[in-house]
């Protein structure tokens, strides 16, 4: 526990620096850094900061926290370092819902986000329902299999909608949504998401030590925990609810839920008591960093999902190949 706690401190410091620094990054009035003189001199700069940048920064950080936390929850409960919340059809459902919103339901913001949220949840519900119908394998296998099937189903639906989309108007919007992005985020978006995500994150945070328990094999868990299914369900629901809320606003942003828990584990070991808070910070940091680049590097927005995959994959490779970057164990 000791060494893990020490590692958390520099992460916290870097995160705070990034949070503060992001406020000064943007494209108005000029690309990249906004100077104090700009802020003092131009009221539009202040408005940009308060109404465009700050809600977006908060949203990016929150989304990163949620994706990392639910990735951790899923990996520990499914005892598999290669899963994230998307596995139970949540992100596939959200993508399908958003495509439906853009191509069929008129393309208004509420249609897109509402349909995304609705189908994210149906993805989970369907996976659960199908899993209860499978007759072989343990519950982990059943859930994973049905999750994969449901995700595939939604993917083909999304593919169909892409094919039918108007190449002038809808297809670009759809493609952009599928690649993920935080453009157009307003305070009301951020507050809506916070209302759902913060309680869920709190639940996951409070139960973080129990995650260690739930990653053991079923028999052992049974001998130690009075109502394991209930705890598991609570954690999974919290993870999925938060992820759905985030994904319907941000589009599909991959890799965060997969990689950040790994990075946290390499830094601090596998004890979720330490790893979860570190995942939260790293996830928030990572997504905020990527989003800052997405809105600042070019005058056009770079889809967030592209950056998270690119940077995430790169970091992951570096991590895997660097022998020194591992917690020293006696």
């Amino acid at each position, binding site marked *: 526990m000791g060494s893990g706690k020490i590692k958390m401190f520099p992460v916290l410091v870097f995160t705070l620096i990034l949070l503060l620094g992001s406020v000064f990054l*943007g*494209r*108005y*009035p*000029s*690309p990249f850094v906004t100077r104090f003189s700009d802020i003092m001199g131009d009221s*539009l700069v202040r*408005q*940009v900061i308060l*109404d*465009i*940048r700050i809600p977006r920064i908060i949203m990016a950080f929150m989304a990163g926290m949620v994706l990392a936390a639910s990735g951790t929850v899923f990996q520990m409960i499914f005892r598999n370092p290669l899963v994230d919340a998307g596995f139970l059809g949540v992100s596939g459902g959200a993508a399908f819902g958003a495509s439906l919103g853009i*191509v*069929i339901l*008129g*393309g*208004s*913001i509420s249609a897109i986000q509402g349909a995304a949220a609705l189908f994210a949840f149906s993805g989970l519900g369907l996976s659960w329902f199908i899993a209860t119908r499978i007759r072989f394998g343990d519950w982990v296998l059943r859930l994973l299999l049905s999750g994969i099937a449901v995700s595939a189903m939604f993917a083909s639906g999304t593919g169909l909608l892409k*094919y*039918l*989309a*108007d*190449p*002038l*108007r*809808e297809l*670009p*919007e759809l493609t*952009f949504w599928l690649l993920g992005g935080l*453009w*157009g*985020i*307003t305070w009301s978006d951020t507050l809506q998401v916070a209302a759902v995500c913060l309680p869920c994150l709190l639940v996951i945070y409070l139960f973080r030590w129990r995650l260690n328990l739930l990653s053991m094999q079923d028999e052992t868990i049974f001998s130690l925990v009075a109502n394991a299914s209930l705890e598991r369900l609570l954690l999974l629901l919290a993870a999925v609810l938060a992820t759905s809320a985030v994904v319907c606003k941000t589009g599909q942003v991959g890799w965060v839920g997969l990689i950040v828990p790994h990075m946290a584990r390499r830094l601090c070991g596998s004890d979720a008591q330490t790893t979860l808070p570190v995942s939260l910070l790293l996830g928030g940091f990572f997504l905020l960093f990527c989003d800052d680049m997405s*809105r600042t590097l*070019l*005058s*056009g*927005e770079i889809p967030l999902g592209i950056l998270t995959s690119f940077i995430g994959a790169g970091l992951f490779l570096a991590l895997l190949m660097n022998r020194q970057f591992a917690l020293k164990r006696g």
Partner: protein
Amino acid sequence: MTLIRKLIFLLLVSGMVSVSNTSAAVSLTDAAGKPHVFDRLPERLVVVGAAPFIPLHMLYLFEETKDRLKGFEVKVKKSDEFLDLVDPEISLKQTLDSNPGPESVAALKPDLVITKSTVETGLSRSLKILGIPVLHVGAETPDMFLKDLENLGKVLGNTKRSEELIRYYQDKLSLIREKTGSLAPGKKPGVLVLEYNNRGNILSLNVPAMGWFQTRQALISGGNPVWLDSLTVRDGWQITGFEQVAAWNPDKIFLIVWYQLQGLEVVKGLYGDSKWRMLKAVQKKDLHLFPQDIYGWDSASPRWILGALWMAKMTYPDRFGPNTSDPAASGREILDMNQTVKEFYRVLYGLDEAIIEKHLMPVWE
């Protein structure tokens, strides 16, 4: 008062009225249903959003645009050859990369942003929060298009010009209606608008959706669009195949060929194809290539009226052919497409004949 003094008085009054007209608040409702009130006419316009060429081509119908347009989003790296003709100095304007964020748009300091959409987009919302008004242009139906022109006229302070433009469109539409409107629906020739697409070497045939301009053009031009009953998708091109085309067996086929293919080659190929030769339209030599100059006449840009006129003429060649009833016309055609094209670009864009003949005459068969 003497006559001259009366005249001077009237002139002064009308001058003051017109001045006060431009200084009174301008109010309108845009294509997304959003109301706008302008106390001062905007001086810095920026165009962003889907298919920027459509609002840009509409803006350039007004001469005020040259000065007031300060920047626009570019979706493809190639410059718009048509706009280069209309405004040789367009390359001096600021461009934004595809999908700009609100900050990038704000950096151009616009006082009005124009975007093509019938719903409020995320960008519109963010810009509104920053206090930058966004005018939505719809251009999805002829009526919407004319309303958009009216709005643009108001916003640019030149309602005289927008009225002139609207009159032009309405005259042309009346001409078509007059010549084609009398037939009962069952007697109208069956027409098919077909998009011939060779994306990634996979051939596809598509028909336009119900709400689309191409469908409207077919309806306006007096034809009976044969594909409307089978449309299942509200929006977008619907995929179809040769078998369905044969089942419809329309009287006229209007083929839209993606600009990367050689349109005439494609048409020649189809005329030589044994399958297609079985179709009524091909046998009667009524498979026509939809004309395009730099832009196709089937798009929602201002040249859609040319497309509708052309389709009307192809659908009813005898009604738009040589004018036999008017002796003064001396056998000239009621609708001479070449003349119409020149008139269109001259009246609407102020281009002179030499330029039109060099760059903007379509590829006829």
